[in-house]
């Protein structure tokens, strides 16, 4: 299978994302100004500071030419993973519920966090076990997931929360400790922590690889 990893001006984690994808398949970088997804099987919207985070995080990237194609790809059921800034972009694009607010402390935080897998029957978590803890680094200033009460209730009722910060691990103030949430259809998922930075024993944890492996498993099952 082949992943497409987006690159906007200001993206900085696309190479790590590409290397993570290459552990389970092939991966190409897709430039924000292009429209061609080159027939990829899954799209990763990586972390960074697309368009300098101007106006609001993710607000400008949402209108990039490549995003028109990503939105169409997602509407057709293609798997799309948003990491950190990618999560913010997908929320702004209306592909994922809610929005990311500044951390409650207003500080940039970079540290390893423990996440709890809420569901393991999904495109993005099928290589995990339900209730399993994943150790993955997080590094952001604007990662406090928020949804208005009615939307939050709906997201929980639909089982759209796939990852939560383990008790005591959330530093950003996210509602209900939400670390990662998917869309209702189940093919678009975003999270603030960085699974692409946790794929090699050299850096301490390979738990992040399970999310990429899950996508590969899912694509293989549908081919």
């Amino acid at each position, binding site marked *: 299978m082949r992943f497409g990893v987006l690159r906007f001006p200001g993206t900085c984690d696309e190479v790590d994302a590409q290397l993570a994808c290459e552990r389970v398949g092939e991966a190409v970088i897709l430039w924000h100004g292009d429209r061609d997804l080159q027939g990829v099987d899954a799209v990763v919207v990586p972390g960074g500071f697309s368009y300098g985070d101007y*106006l*609001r995080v993710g*607000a400008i990237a949402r*209108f990039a030419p490549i995003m028109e194609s990503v939105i169409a790809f997602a509407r057709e059921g293609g798997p799309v993973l948003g990491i950190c800034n990618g999560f913010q972009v997908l929320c*702004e694009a209306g592909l994922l519920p*809610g*929005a990311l*607010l*500044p*951390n*409650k*402390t*207003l500080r940039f935080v970079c540290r390893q966090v423990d996440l709890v897998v809420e569901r393991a029957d999904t495109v993005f978590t099928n290589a995990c076990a339900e209730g399993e803890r994943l150790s993955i680094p997080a590094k952001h200033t604007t990662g*406090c997931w*928020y*949804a*208005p009460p009615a*939307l939050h209730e709906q997201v929980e009722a639909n089982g759209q929360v796939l990852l939560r910060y383990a008790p005591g691990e959330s530093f950003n*103030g996210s509602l209900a400790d939400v670390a990662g949430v998917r869309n209702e259809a189940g093919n678009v998922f975003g999270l603030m922590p960085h699974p692409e930075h946790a794929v090699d024993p050299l850096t301490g944890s390979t738990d992040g690889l399970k999310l990429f492996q899950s996508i590969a498993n899912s694509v293989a099952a549908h081919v």
Partner: protein
Amino acid sequence: MSRRVRVLVRPKAGILDPQGQAVERALPALGFDGVANVHVGRLIELDVEDPSRVGEMCEKLLANPLIEDYEIVDAAPAHGG
């Protein structure tokens, strides 16, 4: 002729506003007592030919209606407009 328009964007009521809270805490420390309900938002100024379209601009780009309220203020005719 274009109009000068100001768009005031602020966090919706009830949304965590750590910037507002930080400012609210800082003021008494400087001797400014009696300040409450501080919120920090954005001011966007623009010259537009058709001010009736600014609401749509806010909904689509200038604000995120899920988390922010916006207010459109018609400022004055733009310089050289």
